[in-house]
């Protein structure tokens, strides 16, 4: 039915077509084929350089892309094939034939800041990419854990073997003198900042705990654990300031840019994965098997010679026929994990989507502990019209963990005291009460695990929406707004009658953390060819970030009805509220020049305004500059044939940074231990309610606080040889952080405990090497090898003279300190006394002497070097993959060791009641010849003779481990023809199956202070690490 409206519609239609040519948008389609046989090549990644757009070829090798600028460049890449970049010509049909090639170094396109895909050739800094399959091959439920060994120079530690345990990551060293400073990289998911905070909270009771802080007690989860690794398409690690210049101050410690899977225009795919595995403890200390419970060589007795029912300490008489229990092993059971994931992707012209869901469930090796995670994600992209497309995504995670306490007076601490002649699993009386062989002095760890749980329930919502507008052939805009929000509800329960809880009559702690990060990014990109040889890309943008955090909590002490943990059931309630909000506004610009495809130049600048610094000083500007030179492709220069590729690059960049909110300003706040009361005046029958009190805040920030600044210099060489069969990338970096903002301790007589000021410089220098080899490659068999190596050293170049030393963590006998001229990670302890010639000094009593007058430098927690070897064999449908990692150096203090020595249950105390002559010299220089007896009382339990010394307490934490070994079998396509499956793979994986270390305790990789802490070198009182065996199934439906 024709009408004037139809006529109008047609006119508009023709106008749009007409103006389309002015807008110069185009759609491209084509087919990618395998050069060797001409067959279609599925799964080829096609990226539009300079944007975040792209697609993947379908099962027949076909692809299409719409709304491309006139002069776009498409990058075609696929593992095992030589990459190609094709600049659009006149035709809208592009057919590409890809030749098989040995593995290239990394991937050709790197996802850089703000999701912009960059050609790796043009990068002037080091960036390391980890693919989805590499992430899944690691078989770690925590996304950061799956990066272990894959990123040269990253120090990644799983804090403990507890389910849901946090993973700590530090790139290029500790940059912060502030013990509570954040050294973790920025996490960006699909362009939006995502919190990776590890919330510690405060669950110490008002009396009775010896713990220093709550962080010592729990391996709290780092929030990146909320991401399902199956949703990740790829992950790029941007290590230094040059790489993160565009992200600004939040990325002072690097950035990890994550892209989740997106649907592809064309066919839809349904994929299902399922796996099941079991976990066991991987290492535990050796026990002594010769002596029973008791002290001084006898069973413990009272003053009147009656037997003392308290049986702790294992310095008793020799064991005759009493059973011996290896409690360090027996407390732990076999854990299990089950995982199921389903994802559906699809799309047709102009619309694509991904819908995924996952369920992960783990039972820990400590009985009654576990972690569950349920995730759902929806990503969608929609092409509105020729110049506008929208994309967005929403994800929900529910993470729940139930774990048990670590640190002081914890399950593992109690285990370090436990006698070998009592079975730790005999833990409960018929009436349900704790069966402890040592009264209220030591709790039974198995009972604690069951009756003193710490629960966390997280609900997390992340969402983002972006609009891309292509104004014309050379100008485009992108605006994205995103939200990452979670609540973490925690509860800790501690019954009365335990070592921890008895002083306050049992207690419970409730906390409600809430975090919200709002990100807004506006980008304008100009891409233009300047003449024949020079390509220009200029990016300008604005970023606004609003970060809000709250914690409302209460602690109830003195349970009235036992076992009922509700705030109504306690005698005393303590409550607290914490709030912090900060905002950052930044503008930035980035210029890239590409000369003839072999010379590159980048320059960028950013200015940030932060709410955390005083108004006069809250703006800071920082630039960066870099250059790259692909010397193997200089026209006219002929390279020897064995060199396939060679590039050198260098960059210099600065990043500025503010500080935590509310540091500046003089405040009065609620005084600790108050309110006081209720008060009952004996003279006066009336009583008052509890009276609150306030005090001057003991830490104050100077009004002239300036931003701190990181200056990073980086250069590197990348080369490939023998048709890209061998390749390496060596990067050297030198990074200095000046004007460090941290609390400088001051004399209490001034009225303050610390003043926050700019007061120090830390410098980190190091080298990162990646080596790729494809020793063998033919039709049926493929062997490739990746080796990563890194070495770094951090020094404290200067610290305000009034400070002296900064104590990062004080473990009572060993402390982590930063001292002017010292190294990052230095550990201080008490040492034995030595004569001037270096021999051990022996006292007049015949025993060595521990000098307890002051702490001296005793070791360093940072490894000398870290290296990983990842080896993959593929034969037809079988693949075998294994990953070794070696960490050399790095001293570790086992915080359970001293108690185990003092209680005499470990192997190193087995030699007793014998006479020895200590090798050394007396004070007068003569060789020692005094025979003395060694036993609990006169030696092992003596701080001054043995267990106070760092030579005993601090151990070499070097380790060599087999991180992953997996065997996979893909059912051949021919066998699947009459099934609904397009692909089916079975994989058997083992994690941490082999560990070799001189360290005598549990696995030394565990971090006592959990993820997000700067205190390295402390381990031992958390759930030990596990080794696991896993069987997985991966199915793609037709």
């Amino acid at each position, binding site marked *: 039915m024709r009408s004037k409206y139809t006529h109008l519609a047609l006119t508009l239609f023709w106008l749009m077509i007409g103006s389309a040519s002015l807008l110069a948008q185009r759609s491209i389609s084509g087919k990618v084929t395998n050069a060797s046989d001409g067959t279609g090549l599925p799964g080829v990644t096609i990226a539009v350089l300079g944007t975040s757009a792209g697609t993947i070829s379908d099962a027949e090798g076909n692809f299409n892309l719409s709304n491309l600028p006139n002069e776009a460049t498409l990058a075609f890449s696929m593992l095992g094939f030589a990459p190609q970049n094709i600049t659009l010509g006149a035709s809208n049909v592009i057919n590409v034939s890809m030749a098989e090639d040995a593995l290239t170094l990394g991937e050709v396109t790197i996802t850089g800041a703000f999701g912009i895909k960059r050609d790796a050739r043009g990068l002037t800094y080091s960036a390391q990419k980890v693919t989805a399959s590499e992430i899944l091959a690691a078989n770690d439920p925590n996304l950061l854990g799956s990066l272990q060994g894959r990123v040269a120079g990253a120090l990644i530690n799983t804090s403990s073997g507890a389910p849901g345990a946090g993973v700590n990551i530090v790139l290029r060293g500790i940059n912060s003198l502030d013990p509570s400073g954040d050294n973790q990289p920025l996490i960006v998911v699909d362009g939006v900042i995502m919190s990776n905070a590890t919330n510690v909270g405060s669950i110490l009771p008002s009396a009775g705990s010896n713990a220093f802080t709550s962080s010592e007690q729990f391996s709290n989860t780092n929030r990146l654990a909320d991401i399902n690794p199956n949703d990740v398409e790829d992950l790029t690690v941007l290590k230094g300031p040059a790489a993160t210049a565009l992200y600004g101050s939040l990325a002072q410690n690097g950035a990890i840019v994550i892209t989740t899977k997106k649907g592809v225009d064309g066919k839809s795919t349904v994929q299902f994965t399922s796996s099941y595995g079991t976990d066991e403890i991987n290492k535990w200390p050796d026990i002594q098997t010769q002596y029973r419970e008791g002290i001084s060589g006898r069973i413990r007795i009272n003053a009147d010679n009656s037997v003392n029912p308290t049986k702790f300490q294992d310095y008793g008489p020799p064991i005759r026929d009493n059973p011996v229990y290896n409690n360090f092993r027996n407390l732990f059971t076999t854990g299990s994990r089950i995982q199921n994931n389903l994802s559906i992707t699809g799309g047709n012209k102009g619309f694509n989507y991904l819908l995924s869901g996952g369920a992960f469930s783990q039972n820990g090796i400590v009985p009654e502990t576990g972690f569950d995670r349920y995730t759902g994600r929806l990503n969608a992209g929609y092409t509105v019209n020729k110049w506008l497309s929208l994309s967005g995504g929403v994800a929900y995670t529910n993470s729940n963990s139930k774990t048990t306490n670590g640190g002081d007076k914890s399950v593992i601490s109690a285990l370090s005291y436990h006698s070998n002649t009592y079975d730790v699993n005999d833990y409960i009386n018929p009436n349900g009460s704790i069966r402890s062989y040592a009264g209220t002095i030591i709790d039974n760890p198995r009972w604690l695990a069951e009756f003193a749980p710490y629960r966390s329930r997280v609900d997390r919502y992340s969402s983002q929406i972006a609009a891309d507008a292509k*104004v014309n052939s050379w100008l485009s805009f992108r605006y994205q707004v995103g939200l990452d929000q979670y609540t973490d509800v925690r509860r800790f329960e501690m019954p009365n009658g335990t070592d921890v809880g008895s002083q306050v009559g049992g207690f419970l702690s409730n906390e409600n953390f809430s975090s919200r990060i709002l990100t807004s990014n506006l980008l304008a990109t100009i891409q233009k060819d300047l003449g024949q040889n020079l390509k220009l890309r200029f990016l300008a943008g604005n970023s606004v970030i609003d970060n809000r955090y709250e914690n409302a909590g209460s602690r109830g002490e003195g349970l009235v009805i036992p076992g009922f943990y509700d705030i109504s059931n306690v005698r005393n309630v303590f409550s607290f509220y914490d709030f912090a909000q900060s905002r950052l506004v930044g503008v930035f610009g980035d210029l890239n020049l590409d000369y003839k495809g072999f010379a590159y130049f980048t320059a960028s600048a950013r200015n940030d305004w932060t709410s955390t610094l005083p108004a006069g000083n809250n703006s800071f500007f920082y630039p960066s500059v870099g250059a790259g030179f692909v010397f193997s492709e200089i026209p006219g220069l002929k390279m020897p044939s064995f060199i396939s590729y060679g590039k050198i690059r260098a960059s210099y960049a600065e990043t500025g940074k503010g500080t935590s909110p*509310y540091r500046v300003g003089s405040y*009065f706040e609620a*005084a600790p231990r108050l309110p006081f009361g209720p008060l009952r005046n004996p003279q006066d029958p009336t009583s008052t309610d509890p009276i609150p009190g306030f005090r001057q805040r003991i830490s104050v920030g100077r009004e002239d606080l300036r931003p701190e600044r990181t200056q990073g210099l980086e250069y590197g060489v990348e080369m490939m040889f023998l048709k890209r069969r061998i390749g390496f990338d060596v990067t050297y970096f030198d990074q200095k952080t000046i004007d460090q903002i941290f609390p400088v*301790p*001051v*004399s209490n007589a*001034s009225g*303050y*405990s610390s003043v926050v000021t700019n007061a120090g410089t830390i410098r980190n220098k190091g080298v990162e090497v990646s080596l790729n080899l494809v020793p063998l490659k033919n039709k049926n068999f493929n062997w490739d090898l990746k080796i990563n190596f890194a070495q770094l050293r951090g020094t404290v170049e200067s610290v305000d003279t009034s400070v002296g030393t900064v104590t990062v963590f004080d473990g009572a006998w060993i402390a982590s300190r930063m001292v002017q001229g010292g190294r990052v990670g230095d550990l201080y302890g008490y040492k034995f006394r030595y004569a001037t010639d270096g021999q051990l000094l022996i006292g007049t009593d015949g025993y060595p002497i521990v000098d307890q007058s002051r702490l001296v430098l005793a070791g360093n927690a940072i490894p000398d070097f870290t290296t990983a070897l990842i080896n993959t064999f593929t034969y037809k449908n079988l693949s075998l993959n294994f990953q070794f990692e070696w960490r050399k150096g790095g001293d570790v203090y086992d915080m359970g060791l001293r108690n185990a020595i003092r209680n005499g249950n470990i192997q190193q105390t087995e030699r007793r009641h014998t006479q020895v002559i200590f090798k050394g010299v007396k004070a007068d220089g003569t060789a020692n010849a005094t025979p003395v007896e060694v036993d609990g009382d006169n030696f092992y339990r003596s701080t001054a003779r043995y267990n106070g010394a760092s030579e005993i307490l601090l151990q070499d934490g070097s380790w060599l481990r087999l991180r992953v070994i997996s065997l996979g079998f893909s059912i051949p396509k021919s066998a699947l023809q009459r099934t609904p499956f397009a692909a089916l793979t079975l994989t058997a994986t083992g994690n941490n199956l082999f560990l070799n270390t001189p360290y005598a305790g549990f696995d030394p990789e565990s971090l006592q202070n959990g993820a997000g802490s700067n205190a390295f070198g402390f381990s031992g009182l958390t759930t030990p690490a596990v080794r696991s065996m896993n069987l997985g199934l991966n199915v793609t439906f037709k």
Partner: protein
Amino acid sequence: MKFNRSKISLAGLALSLLGFSACSDYLDINNDPTAISDSQVTMAALMPTVLEATAQANYQHAFSICQVAQHINGVSGGGVSSQAEFRIASGWSFNYLSAMTNTNALIKRAQELNAPHYAGLGKILMAYNLQMATDAWENIPYSQAFSLSNLKPAYDSQESIYGTINRLLDEAIVDLGQTTSGFSPGADDLIFRGDRARWRRTAQALKARVAMHLSLKSGGATAATNALAALTGGGMISNADDCQLVFNTRNLNPWHSGVALANNTGNVSVRHSAQLADAMNGTTFGIWDPRLPLIAGRLTANASARTWLGNEPGTGLGGNIDLVATSWHSRNVSPIQFVTFAEQKFIQAEAEFLKNNGTTTSKGTTAAGYTAYLDGVRASLDKIGVADTARTRYLGSPIVAPGASNLTLGHIMVEKWKAMFLNPEVWADMRRWEYSADVYKDLQLPAGLNPELGGKWTQRAQYPDAEFTRNGPNATKNVKPLAEPMWVFKK
């Protein structure tokens, strides 16, 4: 329909950038909503903090000092019980950071707002904290303290600190005598609920205490005169005037949580010393002190042990009693005693004795002195809750009550020492009487004495490590040998 979309877009971007840069309001959110500024805090909010912190400081000082004074002893050899160097680092923090800083703010506000009642209270607490600190460390910061502009305050001499203490107490007495005050303490005064008369009497007793400290320096008679002068017009009249912070079931007395409960879970630190136990179980003086079972608990129900034994000073061996959750000083609701009526009575007794030409070996005092002495003993017995019959028997014994003409300094000082169990003030008494065994019967150096002392008694605490690292030059300048007597306890 051709419009230059590119130009409009660029203009839009420029506008938005402009808008953002003019956004200082957007970034002006750096004020902590969970805290307040110094112009908003009230004196009533600072008062409880100061009182509680002072009590905690008292505990920290007493924990080390009462080992030196042989009230308590560690359970193994060495340590403070053998007079090894001790620093009372937590005490320094409580005195300066928690108590005096906030007291200083309180006094300033009181002066700004014309509230002499608060000013008076503040001055008494400042004086008391200064007295605690100077008696432990001798030279300490004050005149340059409590200021952000001087993070390394110089240390004032003990002589000037004592001058300050007396001046503050005199001013406090005047301030508390004012009839009007802009604001007055009430429920926030955790000790006396705003009873100004009691605070004035406390200030007088504190003045008398401080005057008595100069007994060695100025001579007994002069000090005695000054002490009695401070008490003219009254001083404390009964145990109800005791200046003490009473703890409760929510804020546990630190002797309870830090010692009694900890001792129970195997983290034993200190127990009664043999010197104290023997003074009370009849060994030293031949009379059973009825307070002993009330201030100690026996560790094992051992019927055959008739005696209550303390730990031998220096070795920690041989004891069978402990501070338990029911002992008078270490219950959860026990008080921390700052200045008490009993102490004041003993000060009066000693003052009268010295005015009467008493010496460490002489006998005899005035009637007033004798009455004061007996009042002190009775006050202490009543405070601890000794039953009437036991009290009568004890006070009726010639060992305890020999008559005015037979009273010795030893009677007074030992009874005072027992009555002030766990009060760090006893160390001042011991030092000004030079640890004389004539005064404190059977007092001897502990086993394994710190060799640095060269066979002498320790006279001071060392400055905390933190002062050396944070205020090094000043701290180092004021370091003296541990055995060297302080200005106030030196002739």
